[in-house]
């Protein structure tokens, strides 16, 4: 700082009087400042900057930073890409051949045939000769679940190989031709080939479903997806995709709503409670290992389908003399998609889990009989939603009125239809006829689905955290993610060992993984910050940062320039 008692400026130029006034002339310059003043000023500027950098910036950083819990990003990505776990579905088939002399050989060659034909390595069948001790008991090995038991029995005379599947057990009875001769290689090969083909046929649908699931949900092309299109098993991708699109998302509990919609005021009552108990409860009991069900029912009167559904009248031939025209009302296929009048029919439930609706629609008198073109059961299935059955009530002979009460027997056909629809809505394969095998397939399929959905949710979370750096990640998300990863790991292990259902099985682990992954993804506190736009920050910071920053920066620049100038000058002087 200049002081009043500073020495007067030494005049470097002779005189200022005889030159014209010019600002640029050095004689207008103030006296040069003392070095200690310049140093003091430098220190002042430096200390300001030090305060800004050492105190201001960290403080600002600390107060405005968003908490982001560390996430195992690499693991998440590898799961999402399907690299972390190669899901395997080994199926153990026990072979019982009490009357064959050399079953090992047959099994070996059948296994060869199976392995040759199998193009989807993740899902493979393994044959094993049943040890007599174990078959005496339940047939289920304590360590490994047996997918099916193959019983080789001699067939009736002069018959070729054939097999029979029981509806209620996992037992496949295979009758080999009596001409089978174990010593002849041709005969042996034909039987082993037949065994292999039989097993493949039984598990073909499940295999297709699982391969479809694994191939569509993982972005990375797995070895299976490429091959299965050209595979020998009649894979119809469109068909599988259609089947898959019907299936409801997996949930540990489903709510079933049975509704009777009538076009008029009748019928007024139905024995639905008894009918469900008798016709549907056995199936629901069998499914309880996979999902539980809650049930309710309702009757809604004066319910009409959507306005744009117009059935067409189709007369049956020529009307007889004196008799009313006979015929039926026909719903076309395109009408079915808009048949449900969601604006007026009270079908919503307040349960937290998904609802499956089953509707019996009794048309009003003027629309009876109503039928669906090309449908034998007069019913249709709405993908991921439920089923509808149209029930035409016959006119009762006594008074010409229609029935006002639906008995249990009246409802049997409808509930049978609904049972079938429920199975396909849940994703159970339509074949084979054995219910236990179908349920096992469903369990495996649901595990695969849970695994892929949990993995893809992890992938979405991974992408979300990378795409939005401004969202906070609370600790709960990180714990949920690690729990998901653990469950996924366990599920993968369990699958490899063939333990799917039951406590601690792949299904239970997958269920936990999916639930945790959802919880991590839909964490509420993560979303709030996203809606605070970045522009607002500029509006908040600029009024302070602008006026404060400009003098700071300008003085620093000026001082730096002076310093460089001085340094250069000193170098020149030295030189």
């Amino acid at each position, binding site marked *: *700082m*200049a002081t*009043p008692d*500073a020495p*007067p*400026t030494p*005049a470097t130029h002779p005189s*200022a009087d005889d030159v014209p*006034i010019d*600002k640029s*002339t050095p*004689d*207008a*310059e*103030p*006296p040069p*400042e003392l070095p200690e*003043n310049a140093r003091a*000023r430098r220190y*002042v*500027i430096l200390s*300001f900057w030090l305060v800004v950098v050492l105190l201001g910036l960290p403080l600002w950083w600390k107060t405005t930073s968003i908490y982001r819990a560390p996430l195992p990003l690499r693991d998440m990505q590898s799961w999402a890409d399907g690299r972390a776990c190669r899901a395997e579905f080994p199926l153990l088939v026990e072979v019982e051949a009490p009357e064959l002399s050399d079953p090992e050989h047959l099994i070996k060659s059948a296994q060869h045939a199976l392995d040759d034909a199998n193009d989807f390595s993740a899902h493979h069948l393994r044959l094993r000769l049943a040890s007599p001790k174990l078959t005496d008991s339940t047939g289920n090995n304590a360590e490994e679940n047996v997918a099916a038991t193959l019983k080789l029995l001699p067939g009736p005379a002069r018959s070729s190989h054939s097999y029979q599947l029981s509806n209620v057990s996992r037992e496949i009875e295979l009758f080999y031709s009596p001409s089978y001769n174990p010593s002849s290689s041709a005969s042996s090969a034909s039987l082993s080939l037949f065994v292999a083909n039989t097993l493949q046929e039984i598990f073909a649908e499940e295999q297709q479903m699982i391969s479809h699931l694994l191939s569509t949900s993982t972005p990375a092309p797995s070895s299976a997806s490429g091959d299965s299109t050209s595979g020998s098993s009649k894979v119809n991708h469109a068909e599988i995709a259609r089947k898959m699109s019907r299936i409801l998302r997996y949930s540990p509990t489903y709510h079933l*709503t049975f509704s009777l919609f009538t076009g008029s*005021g*009748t019928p*007024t*009552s*139905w024995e*639905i*409670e008894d009918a469900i108990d008798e016709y549907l409860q056995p199936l629901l009991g069998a499914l309880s290992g996979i999902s539980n069900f*809650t*049930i*309710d*029912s*309702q*009757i*809604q*009167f*004066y*319910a009409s389908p959507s306005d744009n559904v117009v059935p067409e009248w189709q007369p049956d031939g020529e009307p007889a003399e004196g008799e009313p025209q006979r015929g039926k009302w026909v719903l076309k296929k395109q009408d079915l998609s808009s048949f449900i009048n969601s604006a*007026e029919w*009270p079908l*919503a*439930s*307040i*349960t937290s889990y998904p609802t499956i609706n089953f509707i019996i629609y009794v048309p009003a008198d003027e629309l009876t009989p109503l039928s669906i073109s090309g449908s034998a059961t007069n019913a249709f299935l709405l993908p991921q939603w439920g089923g509808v059955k149209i029930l035409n009530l016959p006119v009762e002979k006594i008074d010409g009125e229609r029935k006002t009460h639906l008995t249990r027997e009246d409802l049997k056909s409808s509930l049978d239809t609904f049972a079938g629809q429920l199975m396909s809505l849940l994703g159970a394969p339509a074949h084979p006829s054995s219910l236990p095998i179908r349920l096992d397939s469903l369990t495996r399929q649901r595990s695969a689905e849970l695994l892929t959905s949990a993995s893809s949710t992890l992938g979405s979370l991974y992408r979300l955290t990378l795409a939005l750096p401004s969202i906070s990640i609370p600790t709960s998300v990180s714990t949920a993610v690690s729990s998901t990863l653990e469950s996924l790991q366990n599920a993968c292990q369990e699958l490899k060992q063939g333990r799917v259902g039951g406590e601690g099985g792949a299904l239970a682990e997958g269920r936990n993984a999916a639930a945790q992954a959802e919880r991590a993804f839909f964490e509420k506190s993560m979303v709030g910050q996203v809606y605070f736009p970045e522009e607002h920050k500029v*509006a*908040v910071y600029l*009024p*302070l940062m*602008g*006026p*404060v920053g400009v*003098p*700071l920066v300008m*003085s620093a620049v000026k001082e730096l320039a002076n310093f460089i100038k001085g340094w250069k000058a000193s170098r020149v002087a030295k030189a």
Partner: protein
Amino acid sequence: MRLRPWLNSLLLLFLTTTVCAYVYKDYDENLLLKTLPNNAVLASFRFVTNGTYTNHHSLFPRSLAQILSHSNTRELHLKFTMGRWDAESWGAQPFNGQTAGGTGVELWAWVEAVDGPTADKRWTTLTNALSGLFCASLNFIDGTRTIRPVMSFTPDGDHEDMDRLHLLHGSLPREPVCTENLTPFLKLLPCKGKVGISSLLDGHKLFDAQWQSMSIDVRPVCTAPDSCVLQLTQTVDMVLDVERSLQRRDYPVPRPRPREELNCDPNKPYGADGSPCFPRSNIADLPWSISEVFGRPLHSYCPLASEPAEHVCLDVPQERPIYITRDSIEVRHPDGRRCYTLPPAGDFDIILPQQSPALPITPFPEPPLYASRSFTGHGQEHGGVKAVIKNPHPTRPVEFVYLESLPWFMKPYLHTLKTTIYPAPPATGDADLESPVTALYYRPAIDRSRGTHLEASLLLPANSTLILTYDFEKAILRYTEYPPDANRGFDIAPAVITVLKHSPSPQHTLPYTISGAPIQQGHGRVAIRTTSLLLSLPTPDFSMPYNVIILTSTVMALAFGSVFNLLVRRFVGADEVAGKKKFGTVVEKIREKVRRLKGKRKTE
């Protein structure tokens, strides 16, 4: 709660009803039309459905039953009301005011729970679920709008375990009731508004009424200790202005009537030509029919409803002729009602021709109390509430409960609560005895978590007026707590006045024969509600936060800049610079330029 198989209850119903020789079903519907003074018509629809708590429903709506069981609600009352009941000219509200609520939406329920917090949780479940079902903002009934009334409400149903039941009450005075609430209401009916008297319910006419109220009441009814049904009563009460309805028919878009069509009172001095017209009332009973006032005729009848099928009743002066559709049968009741059976198919209509001069119409009997409430005071900081309650009866004193549920930002001072009675009762010298307040329940508000709950039990002597006043302070809300359009003000829920032990006059019990159990809503209590109030709070300038940021930033930047400049800038004395003066160089320059210009001119 007892969950009975529903066949059981049916059987018992049959047993009890065979005595009456009626075939009762689990559903009944009735419509009463009553002419009121000034060409108004009260239409009162009532639908009663019986059901059970099981998961299998036939007539009882599944959606509602599911909500009730999910939230453990044992008794539910939900009211949607709009408009003002003109007690001075129409008399007391029908059904002792039990079917109507305060302006907007009012909800109260008995929820079964072990303790208060559990009850609160279930109440939240209930309000959220009902909000979805009825397309209303019921989910905004949170802790600040919920109270637990002590004296005003009693359960209508038969409950076993009253200790476990928690009464919760919430209201939304600002909620506009409209068609989107009527549609779900109709969906709950078995006949869905397609046949029967519900076919008359049309949003355009219902919400055009001078006063209308939709209510949903669910209560358990036990005819014997072992047989209980869940009874759902849905009512729609509306007061239609016949003149307005007919005008709407002629001119769908409202517009002023031509002068020659106006009925001016010639006796008034200012009724002359060209000057304002004083309308003459009651010159004639206007002609009307069901299809005119409701916009459509009544379609067929609901076959699910119980017999006998006298579903429509009219309460009009005996002398007035009535024309009805051919297939219908008229039944005259001794109390002056005329009831009609509905034709099995086709439309039903009632036509009342013009009646001139007007017949004297008996309105509803005088209500036990007249009540009004208003704000007093001025300014943005304080205010006052004044409720005027009048007992018109010449001899009978009235005991009643006054209930106020105030939002937390309206903070009453309880010490300013004053009651004055006109004419003043004879002084006894004892202030406690003189005070009409016999009991007082007050629960102060907690900011942002609980509203004020004020309940006072009062005794009003015959033929006198009570003025109840208190002052309050207006709170200042946080920036984000203001609703959109904050300058409109905040609605304050109507006060609920419950008259205890009111002996109903015969006309109060309207003719309804419902299967199951007789209607005894409110146990002979009469509910009267005041209108809602509009409270204006000090509203800030909503760009304030940015203004504050900019202002403080500017001040800080100024301070920083000057300090920084003082520290960094080098100051040099003016005399220290050799040569020309630093100051005045600009002046010098200008002078120089002027000189040059002058010189140029001279050379030219």
